[in-house]
């Protein structure tokens, strides 16, 4: 039974996402001792060049106009058809905005168990265990994974992408799209990218990031001053962007941007898993938060349990002086 692991490769406009490489890395690690092979499913239109770069044992390429842009219904149908056909013991899907639409739906349709928000997959006492982040990252759930079909949706950034050292795939196999792709009820209209005029936080060397603890839009001024003093740019967690206080292009995290600056100063950010996903790889993380149990302190190198304003003002004073 333990023959194949199927990875849903995620691509946007011909670009493979980092999480795809992370997933293939995990898949290869799990495949080796079991003698499984790793299949990567690439969905798109005109992406055969990209398929050639996927470091899987076998790349399954399905092309169709409905797959040009991400279409949740098309992706679900395609993955379902391939899973039925290849009968993998394990399906890995990224727990991203795209993967979330697909994983639960396909698992439900196939009647296979699903473990979502997975951050670790380990062998324990001969049993494969997937660990999931629940309750805002405050609790972990260990879930046994059998060899009789399972779907795991994996958090981006949870695994190293280097494990999947690029090597040419043994072969690319072109799959015929299922007939359902011609009668879809969902249409992808287009992509909209944020205005380029704003700062690119992914290229910033230093970031001053603010979260809910900043309390009001007016207080952003303090963060701006501090950033100026440090030669940094201001970024934020999702709630501040949702409130319209900062543009989307400043959002760090799952639905925002992934950043790897040399300095990430987190002010009033408690560190929801969705946020940590976007910044945990920063070289130096210093976090200020009033809650000593805030998950941000789990990824930070240095932590200060204090009112962010007290620290920010004291820092600003030193920088300004």
């Amino acid at each position, binding site marked *: 039974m333990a023959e194949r692991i199927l990875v849903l490769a995620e691509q946007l406009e011909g670009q493979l996402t980092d999480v795809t490489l992370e997933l293939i890395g995990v898949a290869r690690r799990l495949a080796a001792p079991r003698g499984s092979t790793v299949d990567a499913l690439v969905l798109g239109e005109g992406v055969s060049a990209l398929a050639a770069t996927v470091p899987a044992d076998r790349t399954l390429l399905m092309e169709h106009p409905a797959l040009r842009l991400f279409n949740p219904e098309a992706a679900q149908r395609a993955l379902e058809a391939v899973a039925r056909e290849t009968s993998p013991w394990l399906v890995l899907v990224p727990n991203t905005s795209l993967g979330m639409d697909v994983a639960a739906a396909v698992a439900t349709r196939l009647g296979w168990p699903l473990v979502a928000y997975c951050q670790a997959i380990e062998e324990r006492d001969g049993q494969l265990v997937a660990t999931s982040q629940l309750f805002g990252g405050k609790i972990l759930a260990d879930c046994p994974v059998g060899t009789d079909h399972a779907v795991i949706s994996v958090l981006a950034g949870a695994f190293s992408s280097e494990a999947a050292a690029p090597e040419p795939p043994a072969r690319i196999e072109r799959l015929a799209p299922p007939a359902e792709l011609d009668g879809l009820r969902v249409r992808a209209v287009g992509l909209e990218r944020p205005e380029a005029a704003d700062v690119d936080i992914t290229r910033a060397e230093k970031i001053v990031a603010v979260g809910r603890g900043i*309390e*009001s*839009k*007016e*207080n952003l001024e303090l963060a701006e001053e501090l950033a100026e003093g440090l030669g940094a740019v201001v970024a934020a967690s999702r709630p501040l962007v949702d*409130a319209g206080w900062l543009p989307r292009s400043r959002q760090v995290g799952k639905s925002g941007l992934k950043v790897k600056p040399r300095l990430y100063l987190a002010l009033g950010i408690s560190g929801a898993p969705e946020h940590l996903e976007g910044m945990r790889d920063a070289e130096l993380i210093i976090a200020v938060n009033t809650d000593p149990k805030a998950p941000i302190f789990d990824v930070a190198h240095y932590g200060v349990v204090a*009112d962010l*304003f007290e620290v920010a*003002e004291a820092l600003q004073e030193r920088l300004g002086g």
Partner: protein
Amino acid sequence: MDSSLRKVQDVWEQDTAIVEGVDISGPWNRMFGQRVIWNYTPELIDEIASFPGAESFAWCYQCGKCVPVCPVDVVGDYGPRKLYRKAQTGISLLDSPDLWLCTTCMNCLRVCPKQVDMVQIMPAVREQALLSGRPLPAELQEALENTARYGNPLGQPPRKREAWVKDAGVPVPILHQIQRPVEWLWWVECYPSYHPRGIDASIALARIFHALGLDFGILGREEKCAGDSQRLAGERGLFEMLAEENIRTLSKYEFRHIVVTDPHALNAFRKQYPKYGGQYDVWHYTTLLARELPRLHPLLTRQLPYRLTFHDPCYLGRHNGEYDAPRQLIEALPGVEFTEMPRCRQNSYCCGGGGGGMWLDSFAAGRQRRRLSEERVLEAVATGADTLVICCPYEVSRFEDAVKSTGYEGRLRVRDIAELLAEAMGLIGEEPAKA
């Protein structure tokens, strides 16, 4: 109609008029004629006055006494009289930012010849704004949601309300644990239970109560916000819910009096809770400690080389008439020098935290030259004081922030009376008890 009158545009004048021998025929006599003032409509004033509690809005006769005493006017373009005038000119209080600027400090009512009562008008109009689904400032919405969900505006877990007790250094009996009657039920309130500087004062006060051998206990996790400021911010339904729950909790325990840390709780217990069946003998802690002064005096053994000035909390002073107890306590502190600020006692300034102002800080700050708390800190600095003494838990964080933003950090300290007493008694050091 008088045939000698003729209408010139919108005014009347007499063709011929000789008054006491002076000929004021024609345009000269226009000023003596009656004229209908038509440059405003009374609808908006009537609308406001129609809300239960806001009737007195219509009584204003625009004398303007309220404006110079209004602490908000001092730092901005606001004044109770202006609200009426704006309503005359078509600006409804319901939709104006003015609705959220009043701190219900009550200084206008003190001087108003017509008894126009903003302390009742504001919550009544704010309630209508909320009920009609108008958006409210985000900070306030969060504080109200937190209060409804957690029983405190800070959004802290209810179970953590008694967590400060473990740092008190003296026994602080919690009623659900001790199951016996106490003489004094200490109503600690939200900021003294959760805010770090509020906790400092709570620890100081606990040690003083303990040193005096007071038979006291707290409700701990069973206590919920007394809710007065939420009521004044317009959330009467939330206040009623809290009052009912608190009264139910209090009915489980035997005690003789309530002592409160927070003047806003004092106000709620004295003036509102009786309407819901909660009749209690309620004391502010300064009143209780002033009564205990004969026993306290011999314990005040340490010299405090401080120059003090004192801020009267609106809800202790103007609202509940207690001006003397805090001053008696300050004067009992050995070694201190005490100077009043120009605005004190009945005419005291306001820290800006009352009436929901605690949760409208950014909203108000964006509409004022400086915060009320900053204005007050400058006033305190001008007296030459090195310590601003407070006895309301809203004030410590507001004034400490203001000391920083006005650049007086290190030159003016903000300390609760309880902290100074405890220091003079040798129960805490010069630094806050917990930090």
